[in-house]
C-alpha cells in the first residue's frame, strides 16, 4: 500500500511538529519554572498532581480549573473587546512560530513568502502587546488602566532596540531569509557574531514578555495583575497565564534561529528522502528554544521587579545605545565578512 502524498507533506509535518512540540515545551517550561523556583526557595513546588513525575501535570490540572471556572464579564467593561481580545492574543502569540522554518525543508510557508518569515513573525509579535493595551482599555478598571499605560510605555521602550537587534543580525548575514540565516551560522552562531545584539535581544524579550525583572505592566505588587486584573477563567488562561508563555516561545524560537544557529550543525537532506534528519533538525531547534526559555523563566527565581521609571530610562539610555552599537558592529561585519 502506498502512502498518500498529503501524509508526507512538509507543511503538515511542520504544523504537527510545531503544534505538538510547542505544547510539550510549554508544559515543561511552566513546570520547570515552578520547580526551579521551588529549588531556589527551599520548597518542593508542584507535587501532588502526578507525584511520580514531580507534579508534571499540574499545569493540565490548572488548565482544567481555568476552563471550568465561571466566566465573569464585568459590567463596566467593553464586552466585545473583553471577549474578543484574549483569543486574538493567544492566536497572535502562536502564529509567529508557524512563520519560520524548523529545518530547510520543514516549513509551513513556501519560498517567496518564507523569505520574509522572520520579519513577518516580528511584525505579528509587535502587534501582540498592543492587544494588551486594548485589553486594559476593555476591562475599564483603574488598575487595568494603569497597567495598560505601563504596557504602552514599555512597548515603546523595547520595540526599537529589539527590532534593531534583529536588523543588526540581518545586516551581518546580508539576508532576511531564515534558511540562509541558519546556513551562515554553521560554525559561529549569531550570538558570537554580534554579542551586543544578543544582549539586546535577551533584555528586549524579557521586557516584551513580562519576564522578571520587567514584570511591570502586570506587577501584582501595585497594579494587581494590571491589564488582566478583571479577567477570570479561560480568559485569564488565554492571556496572562498562557498567552505570554506562548509569546515567549515564539520569541525564543526566533532567537534560536537568528542567534543560536537554528538547526545549524545538522544539515538534513531533502524532505521525503530524509524524514528523520529533518525531524532531528526540528527537534534541535526546539531544544535551543527550550534552553532560551529556560533562561527567561529562571529570572523569576533571582530577580525582584524593576521600577517602571528605571526600566524606561535604562531602556532609552542604555539599551538603545547598545542596540546602536550592535548595528555598528554588524555594519563593520557587513563589509569585513
Amino acid at each position, binding site marked *: 500500500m502506498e502512502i498518500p502524498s498529503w501524509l508526507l507533506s512538509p507543511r503538515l509535518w511542520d504544523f504537527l511538529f510545531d503544534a505538538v512540540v510547542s505544547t510539550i515545551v510549554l508544559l515543561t517550561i511552566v513546570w520547570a519554572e515552578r520547580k526551579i*523556583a521551588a529549588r531556589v526557595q527551599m*520548597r518542593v513546588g508542584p507535587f501532588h498532581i502526578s507525584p511520580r513525575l514531580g507534579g508534571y501535570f499540574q499545569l493540565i490540572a490548572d488548565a482544567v480549573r481555568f476552563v471550568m471556572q465561571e466566566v465573569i464579564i464585568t459590567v463596566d467593561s467593553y464586552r466585545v473587546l473583553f471577549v474578543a481580545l484574549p483569543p486574538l492574543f493567544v492566536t497572535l502569540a502562536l502564529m509567529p512560530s508557524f512563520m519560520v522554518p524548523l529545518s530547510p525543508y520543514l516549513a509551513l510557508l513556501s519560498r517567496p513568502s518564507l523569505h520574509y518569515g522572520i520579519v513577518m513573525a516580528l511584525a505579528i509579535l509587535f502587534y501582540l502587546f498592543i492587544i494588551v493595551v486594548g485589553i486594559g482599555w476593555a476591562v475599564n478598571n483603574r488598575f487595568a488602566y494603569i497597567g495598560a499605560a505601563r504596557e504602552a510605555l514599555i512597548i515603546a521602550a523595547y520595540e526599537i532596540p529589539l527590532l534593531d537587534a534583529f536588523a543588526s543580525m540581518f545586516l551581518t548575514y546580508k539576508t532576511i531569509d531564515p534558511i540562509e540565516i541558519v546556513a551562515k551560522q554553521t560554525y559561529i552562531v549569531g550570538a558570537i557574531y554580534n554579542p551586543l545584539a544578543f544582549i539586546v535581544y535577551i533584555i528586549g524579550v524579557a521586557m516584551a514578555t513580562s519576564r522578571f525583572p520587567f514584570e511591570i505592566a502586570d506587577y*501584582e*505588587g501595585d497594579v494587581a495583575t494590571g491589564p488582566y486584573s478583571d479577567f477570570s477563567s479561560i480568559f485569564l488562561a488565554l492571556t496572562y497565564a498562557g498567552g505570554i508563555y506562548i509569546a515567549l516561545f515564539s520569541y525564543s524560537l526566533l532567537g534560536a534561529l537568528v542567534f543560536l544557529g537554528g538547526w545549524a550543525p545538522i544539515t538534513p537532506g531533502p524532505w521525503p528522502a530524509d524524514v528523520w534528519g529533518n525531524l532531528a533538525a526540528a527537534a534541535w531547534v526546539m531544544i535551543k528554544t527550550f534552553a532560551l526559555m529556560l533562561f527567561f523563566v529562571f529570572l523569576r*527565581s*533571582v530577580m*525582584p*521587579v524593576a521600577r517602571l*521609571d528605571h526600566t524606561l530610562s535604562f531602556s532609552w539610555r542604555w539599551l538603545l545605545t547598545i542596540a546602536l552599537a550592535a548595528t555598528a558592529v554588524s555594519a563593520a561585519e557587513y563589509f569585513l565578512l
Partner: protein
Amino acid sequence: MGLRMEQYGMVLKEVEAGPGGRRTLELLFGPQHPTSGHIRFFVELDGDIIVDIRPDPGFVHRTMEKLGETRHFMMNIPLFERLSLPDAINVTWAYSMAVERMLGYDVSERAEYLRTLFGEMSRISVHLYDLALHAIMIGSSTGFMYGFGLRDLLTNLWAIATGARTTPTWVLPGGVRRAPPKVFYERLAGFLDFLERKMDEFYRLVVKNPVGYYRLKDVGYLSKSDAAAYLATGPGARGSGVDWDARRDLPYGMYKQVEWEVKVRDEGDSLARTLVRIDEVRESAKIIRQLLKSMPMDGPLVGHNATHKIPPKEREMLNEIVRMSGYYVTTTNLAEGTGVTEGGRGRYFFQVFGSGTERLFRVRISTPSWQNLRAFMKATVGARLMDLPAIYGSFGFFPPEADR
C-alpha cells in the same frame, strides 16, 4: 505639634497643579489588594506620582482596648498577642510589665533571662516576617520564601518551648508560663547559625541584587526631623538616624547584662530601614548567644510576690510550669501600671488601670504600626505608585497592630 495629615499632600498638589489645575486619579488601594495588607489607602495619583494618601485602617479588628476591659486581666494575654502574632512575646511582655507594676509583682531572674531570650526570638520572627513580605512586595518571591522558611524553623522552636507556633501565651505577670525543655536550647544554637548564613544569602539575593537595590535606594525618604516629629518608632525611626531604642533607653529585661548595640542608619530611605532590620536580626542572634551562656537553668519561673497567689500544691512545680488556674482568683489593685518594650516594629506601650475586681478599669495601648503610619504617609507622598509597596514594606507595617 499639630499633625494635620492631609496638609502636606494638599500643599504638594497645589504647587504641582498650577493655573487650571491638573487631573488626578484616585485609586482605592486595598483592603483586598495583594500588597495592601488589609488596610485601605485612598491614593491620589498625578500620573504615576502619589500626591496624597489617606489610610483607612480598621479592616482586621478593632476595639482591642475595649475588649481588654471586659475580661479577667489574665485572659487579656491571649487577646493582646493577637495584636501582632509574629511579635507575640514582646506585646505580652509589655502588658505583663504593666500588670506587674499595677500589682506590685517582681520577676524572677530566670524569668527575666527567658523573657529576654524569647523577646529577641520574637524580634527575629517579626523581622523575618516583615523582610519576607517586603521582598514579595518588591516582587522577589525568593526573598518571601526565605523569610517564611526561616521563620517556620523559629516557630517550631516556639512550639517546642511553649506548645504553640504563633500564639505562645507564654509571658505571665511575674514571670513566664513554662520552662523550655533541654532540646530547645540545643536546637536554638543550630538555628542561629543557619539563620545568619541564610540572612547573608537573603541580603545578596534581594537587597544587594541591582534590581532590588534600586527599588529601595532613595525611595520613601523620611528625614530625621520628620521621623522624630511624626513619632516613628523601631526601624522606621532608626533608618532615619533617630538613635532611640527602648531596650537601651528604658532598660528592662536583661539587656543591661549583655553587650549589644542599637543599629542606626542615617540615609532615611527604604534601603536604610531594610538594612536596619537585617542588622537587628544579626544583633538579636548575638544577644541570644550571650544569654545562652549565662542563663540559669533552674529556678522558679515567677517572682516571689506572684508565688503567693499560687496554691501551695502548685507552687511545687514552679520550676517547670505555672498553672494558670492559680491566678484566676486574683483581683487587680486600685493602681496604675505602665509597660514599655521594644518590639520588632518599634515601641509597645501598655497602660493599665486596676478596678479592684478581676477586670481592668482601662487599658491603653500604643502600638508601633499605628505610629509609623504617619511617618509612612509622609514618606510616601511624592513617590511613585510602584514605590508604594516598597515603602509600605520597609516600615514593616502590620494592620492588625494598628487596629487596636
